[in-house]
């Protein structure tokens, strides 16, 4: 039998929504999110009772909430949000699982739990009912939360998957947003001719209340109660066995179906079987045998009801001893006051939120909480619905970098804490699909070589995703006349008195801005100083090295065997080439630069390769890619490229490049930290200060020509062109020109790139073209013998 966990990972779900009472984020991230990532799911949302969220807040190690999935706390004023539904929607189909298990290790197999799995093709009625449940939540029936639009969207998607499909009415989902579960099952039982036998399994009972209600409503005089052989999960409410009831007899039994040999798990399963005169009902789900679950008001619950219209003998069972009555567990935590719960969404640099419990009003203080302490954000004003906004500059980047933050609001009446949802996540997921988790890993610095390979492929396939130039505002500045008086609808006046909430209408502009900020953060992460992978989280041998090492910890992680490093390198070559084509250089030069240096830091390429990348980058740099803030960086790269060449020619070549890049050579040596990745990969340990000083002092050949021309103007030689006399063929002519004005027609100043004699128009010999380029002097040897000099750097 395939497990629920397999279902989660079996498909690239477009939506995955989980509802729960208790919540273990370490379970969710290690088991559910793991499967969602494997399956390539797009988005995940957890709707959890405020109690569940409160517990989850103390799990400091689970850091992906609000970023790779969202959590929305739900407050049910009359009880708790107890529904346990998993809805997975894909293209044209959906799967829904309804059960007794919370989103915890216990709930997904650690305990003995029951669940029903229904599919849009075979249980259309139940899917419609599920849609109705989420519609009810969206309407705010019986529950306060901030996920109205998500619930409405999910309801619509679920409905679409069964549009036009007729159900057979045999499987239904009952929820109690509109009517109690007990009312609904009593009605069904009556339709089937009335109940004749009732069997119930539940880990929690509220004395005899539920027994009384069941017997009253279903008109039976006894309830067969399943006594689970290994016992039941103890909770913080009720007791594990019903008390004696005046309305109906409790008959302890052991259901054969539930008595699996060797299964010692404690039961948390909730099930009711009703044998009727004309059929049978099986109800399983979240509802315990308590009035809060089955009756009016109380908790929010969901159960799947199987309706069989044939007479059936039903479950078989053996007589059993009642379970030893155990009351609810005492809370040994001696907790300080219970904290309230809030929800918050970060949009750019503003947090929009609402306290769901308790209802706080007036002014309060906001704090960002990390595992290392708290940081005060400032004062907030809570409105009648406990809503607030607060500015949190820079928080978005910190969240993107993998830091975990929660938000606390407190005043003299109480305090509340909650997770922060990252609004841009939707846009990031939309643009990057299943790659989002890899991008987040890269931003947080927890990426693996496999992530790098995938991200490189993504960039190669969609280089424009990183093109910041495409993000420019479409509206040109100043299109609206400042002179015209603006008008505002009167009904909008005064709206500023209520705290603004995240804009639903800003739409395209907001999403584009989100993506732009994300790309900025992504590019910044490439520039971070990160060490080589060295197998730290890589997967050498396709095996788990930290599991291989049981024998004594002598083996160290091996980097070189990780095949993803080689693959990443192979894709990088392609990406690098594609980013630096003539058409792309202007847009992607700095992306290529940062990516190359990232590869140097992380993947440790061979020095020869690094040298070639650096050489390409320095060669491709031109005025079109100038970024004033990074001119120092390209200067450092140039210095590094020439670090191995200690000759005068080397220094001159470096100076020439720097001059062409318009780098201020007279200034201080560039910060070599900007190219530390290249530097480490090249193993370059040169004295850059010294090298810089040398470059400052030396003069390039065109500069010497400039000095020579000044000397001509001044009619007297100077010391500013020490290397010109080394050009044996041309120097006699030039020297003569210094002394004799009439000889000055024997040479001519030509622009850079000259390839023909300016006097005869004959092409210069190839060797002379080379001389003009490298030495700034040449002779028109195949025509008039004119000496050419070039003063342009």
């Amino acid at each position, binding site marked *: 039998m395939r497990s629920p966990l397999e279902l989660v990972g*079996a498909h690239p779900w477009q939506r995955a929504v989980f509802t729960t009472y208790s919540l273990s984020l370490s379970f969710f991230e290690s088991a559910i999110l793991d499967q969602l990532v494997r399956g390539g799911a797009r988005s995940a949302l957890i709707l959890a009772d405020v109690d569940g969220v409160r517990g989850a807040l103390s799990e400091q190690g689970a850091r992906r909430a609000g970023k790779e999935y969202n959590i929305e706390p739900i407050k049910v004023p009359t009880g708790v949000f107890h529904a346990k539904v998993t809805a997975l929607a894909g293209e044209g189909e959906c799967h829904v699982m309804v059960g007794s298990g919370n989103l915890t290790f216990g709930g997904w197999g650690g305990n003995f739990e029951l669940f029903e799995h229904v599919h849009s093709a075979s249980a259309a009625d139940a899917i419609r009912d599920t849609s109705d449940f989420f519609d009810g939540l969206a309407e705010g029936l019986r529950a306060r939360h901030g996920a109205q639009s998500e619930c409405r969207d999910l309801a619509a998607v679920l409905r679409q998957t069964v549009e036009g499909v007729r159900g057979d009415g045999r499987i239904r989902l009952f929820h109690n947003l509109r009517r109690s579960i007990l009312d609904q099952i009593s009605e069904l039982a009556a339709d089937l001719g009335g109940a004749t036998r009732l069997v119930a399994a539940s880990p929690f009972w509220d004395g005899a209340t539920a027994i009384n209600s069941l017997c009253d409503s279903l008109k039976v005089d006894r309830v067969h109660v399943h006594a689970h052989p290994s016992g039941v999960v103890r909770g913080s409410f009720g007791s594990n066995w019903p008390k004696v009831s005046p309305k109906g007899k409790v008959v302890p039994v052991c259901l054969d179906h539930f008595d699996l040999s060797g*299964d010692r798990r404690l039961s948390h399963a909730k099930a009711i079987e009703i044998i009727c005169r004309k059929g049978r009902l099986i109800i399983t789900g979240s509802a315990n045998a308590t009035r809060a679950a089955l009756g009016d008001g109380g908790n929010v619950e969901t159960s799947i009801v199987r309706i069989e219209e044939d007479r059936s003998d039903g479950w078989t069972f053996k007589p059993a001893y009642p379970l030893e009555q155990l009351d609810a567990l005492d809370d040994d935590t001696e907790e300080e006051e219970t904290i309230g719960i809030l929800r918050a969404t970060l949009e750019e640099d503003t947090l929009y939120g609402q306290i769901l419990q308790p209802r706080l009003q007036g002014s309060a203080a906001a704090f960002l909480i990390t595992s290392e302490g708290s940081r005060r954000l400032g004062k907030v004003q809570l409105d009648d619905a406990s809503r607030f906004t607060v500015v949190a500059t820079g928080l978005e980047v910190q969240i993107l970098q993998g830091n975990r933050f929660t938000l606390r609001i407190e005043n003299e009446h109480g305090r509340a804490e909650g997770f922060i949802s990252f609004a841009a996540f939707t846009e990031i997921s939309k643009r990057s699909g299943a790659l989002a988790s890899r991008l987040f890993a890269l931003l947080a610095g927890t990426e693996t070589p496999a992530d790098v390979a995938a991200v490189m492929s993504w960039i190669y396939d969609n280089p424009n995703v990183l093109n910041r130039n495409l993000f420019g505002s479409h509206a040109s500045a100043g299109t609206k006349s400042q002179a015209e008086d603006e008008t505002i609808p009167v009904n909008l006046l005064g709206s500023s008195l209520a705290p603004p909430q995240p804009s639903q209408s800003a739409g395209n502009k907001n999403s584009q801005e989100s993506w732009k900020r994300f790309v900025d953060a992504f590019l910044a992460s490439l520039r971070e100083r990160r060490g080589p992978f060295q197998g730290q989280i890589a997967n050498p041998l396709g095996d788990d090295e930290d599991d291989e090492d049981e024998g004594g910890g002598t083996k*160290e992680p*091996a980097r*070189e065997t990780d095949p993803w490093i080689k693959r990443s390198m192979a894709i990088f070559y392609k990406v690098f080439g594609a980013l630096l084509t003539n058409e792309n250089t202007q847009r992607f030069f700095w992306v290529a630069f940062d990516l190359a240096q990232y590869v140097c830091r992380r993947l440790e390429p061979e020095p020869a390769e690094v040298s070639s990348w650096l050489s390409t980058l320095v060669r491709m740099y031109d005025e079109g890619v100038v970024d004033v803030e990074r001119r120092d960086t390209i200067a450092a790269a140039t210095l590094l490229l020439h670090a191995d060449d200690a000759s005068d020619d080397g220094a001159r070549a470096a100076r020439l490049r720097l001059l062409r890049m318009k780098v201020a050579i007279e200034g201080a040596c560039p910060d070599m930290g900007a190219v530390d990745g290249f530097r480490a990969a090249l193993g370059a340990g040169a004295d850059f200060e010294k090298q810089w000083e040398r470059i400052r002092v030396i003069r390039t050949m065109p500069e010497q020509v400039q000095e020579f021309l000044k000397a001509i103007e001044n009619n007297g030689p100077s010391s500013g062109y020490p290397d010109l006399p080394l050009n044996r063929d041309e120097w006699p002519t030039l020297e003569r020109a210094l002394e004799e004005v009439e000889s000055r027609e024997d040479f001519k100043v030509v622009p850079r790139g000259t390839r023909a004699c300016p006097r005869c128009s004959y092409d210069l010999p190839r060797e002379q073209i080379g001389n003009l380029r490298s030495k700034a002097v040449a002779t028109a040897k195949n025509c008039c013998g004119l000496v050419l000099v070039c003063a342009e750097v």
Partner: protein
Amino acid sequence: MANNVIEELRVQAREAKEPSISPVPSIRLGGVDPLGLRQINFDLMDQVLPGLNNVARHIRPFMVVTWAWRRAIAIAQGSGRASVAVDAQLRDFVDRIEVIYVWSQLLRDPNADLPGREVIGPILKARQYSFGGEAWKKRREIRENSTSLMAAINYGPGLRSMGWLTRHPENPKVMEPAAWANLALDALDRALGDDLDHDAFSSFGKVMVKEDEVLRWGKAWALEKYTKSEQRIFTEALFGSRSEQLRRLGVELAIAASPTSSNVAAVRRRMAGLPSRLRVPDTKLATVANWRRVQCRQLFRLCLETVFFWVTLQLRDGPMSSQRLVSRFMNQTTGARKFATTAKWVGHHYDESPGPVGLLQQVESALQGDVGQYAPAVMQGLAFCLMGGFQDGAVIERHDRLPLKRARSEFEQRLDTKPFEFMRHVLESWVFAQHTYWSIGRGLADARARGKTILRLKVVLEDGGWTLTPGVASGSFPQPTADRLRTALSLAHECGFIDQVEI
């Protein structure tokens, strides 16, 4: 495959007649680095003994592999052919020599300190082996990343970092032996004498080798019989003129710390600064500081892993809150009720006299005893890490790997809090949060790469408090990360600089 699964699940949903019982979780459990703190240890070791690992501790395997490449290239050059197949000929030859070498040494000593004993088992039994065909091909594939001497977990990194082999610029799968090693490699030629003409050493392609031949060769190139020229040239590479400076200083320090005894533990202690009275020249002060940093980090990691292990033993009794765990832990230490502030309580446990290595040994000893002894040893270790003199080194310690600097800063922020609150922070943030963060991060990295599904979480927060993950009996037994010192000492011994190495 995923399509089949989803189809099966659709059918399963359609055909179900009853509610299903949740299956028992079947995720494989694993992980031996529960807090993810190991990597910083390795990075710090690179500041003292770079290019070494804990496996490659004999001279001869370095020589044999380098020699094998030289021989392979010579055969190719002598063949008169225009080209040679990189994998089917060159690498095949080197693999063959490696296997013959290990085989020959295991015949001489079944406990020879070489990788691949299990893999070679069938050859040892068969007493002859044909290096060719499918079986050999498969064996080569299996060995490549595991028991091969060239593998990255064996001699591979040392061979490259010391310059014995360098990648060919045209084809990185081809390795070129260092020319400066020729004198040492010539010695191996001489040792094998006429046997060099055997097909196994002189040709590409399929070769049959018999046990009696291997036994003969085993004596000629025995693991423990290295020539003077091998010693001399290896010394140059290990910590001589060809060595990178950090390793040269590191190995020199290790030798200087072993004048009378080369007991690994004693050398470790002497190298680590106070209370050691080892005098070192100024040029080695930074090496001593770096080694001390390695040992402090080892101590910090061992202390936190011991707390984690202790927690898993407590949770065998059932779920517990942080509060209860902290109370239990503190009750097993001294002064828990006596001191009002964290500063005073941690200060009460601070004793620098044993030094980091001594404290490390104290935690290891405590781990051998009753569980009640863990807490006092851990507190002494933690107090040293948090209060002892500390200087930043050159290693970039990632914030999320809980560097000591971060821990000390968080400790300093809590000096005036109650000891209970500080210990609660240690437990919830440094132990549980770190465990959860690391285990989940590692698992999700596998998920993104579609790798194995391994559940590394051993402790989770569930309804009743912290509890062992279903299927987990306890945490893995904590032990310090091997720090390469034994390798350095072993190689220095084989080079003739240390009389003997005691483990």
